[in-house]
């Protein structure tokens, strides 16, 4: 089985704050991440496609199409933005990187067929989204084959890298 992973880099700011909690509880839960004006990260997004290598062209998928998808649906909205203030997805949702990974997974899934699937005779599905928030914190969503129609809305594997 072959898979291809492409890395994209974007910088954004966020503040972790839940309206459901008191100011003191927010401070206790999120610590420095709750500081009122937010802070930023240089995120590294890894998008993985798994599938069959096209016999004629040697590709699982067209990098150009994948790049267009990520540019149009992810980087457009998140790169050099304040996630809390600029991204409607986080109007009601705390922009933890767990949630960011889940939102990005949903956005990629929604447009995968239009941009990537079946392109150029290649056959692949979105299998993994990984976000490195800092050199120490990584967040990962594994996506079952689209045939199973079973996109979990949970973080399937979240871990901190040392």
């Amino acid at each position, binding site marked *: *089985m*072959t*898979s*291809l*992973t*492409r*890395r*994209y*880099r974007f910088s954004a700011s966020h503040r972790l704050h839940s309206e459901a909690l008191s100011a003191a509880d927010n401070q206790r839960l999120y610590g420095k991440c709750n500081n009122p004006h937010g802070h930023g990260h240089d995120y590294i997004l890894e998008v993985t496609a798994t599938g*069959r*290598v096209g016999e*004629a*062209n*040697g*590709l*699982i998928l*067209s*990098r*150009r199409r994948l790049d267009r998808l990520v540019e149009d649906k992810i980087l457009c909205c998140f790169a050099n933005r304040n996630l809390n203030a600029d991204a409607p997805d986080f109007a009601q949702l705390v922009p933890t990187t767990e949630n960011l990974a889940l939102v990005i997974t949903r956005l990629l899934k929604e447009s995968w067929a239009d941009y990537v699937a079946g392109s*150029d005779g290649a056959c692949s599905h979105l299998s993994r989204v990984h976000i490195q928030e800092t050199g120490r914190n990584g967040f990962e969503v594994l996506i079952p084959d689209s045939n199973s129609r079973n996109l979990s809305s949970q973080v399937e594997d979240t871990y901190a890298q040392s």
Partner: protein
Amino acid sequence: MFVTRKAEFSASHVCRIRSLTEAENLELFGPEANANGHGHNYIVEVTLEGDPDPVSGMVMDLKELKDILNEEIVGPMDHRFLNYEVPPFDRVVPTAENVANEIWRRLANRLRSPAAKLARVRLFEGPDLYVDVVSGDETA
């Protein structure tokens, strides 16, 4: 358990299909299709699966794995133009997918011990793109 050894080689390649037009090649392969080729610093991570030998404490002697990597990958591919000098890329497009699968085939031929099974080949084509081939149906 898994044991991973890394090797590096630098090579040039071009991704083009002769029967396609210039515009079709550019759409399919992007700048990788530029006619005279270009190069990458490839990094290969080879992962073996097995249990440590009770006497040696090793899954495989990594010196031996290093020699195999040099003979099969680094020697033939380093500082070469893959399309012109490294079969089968005279007739197979040297995309990262195809190079990774060719590396898998070459190593699978040499790593036949059930005590240290080839579990994954990861090929980085530059820092922002990598291909994984894992055991199973390698070319599927």
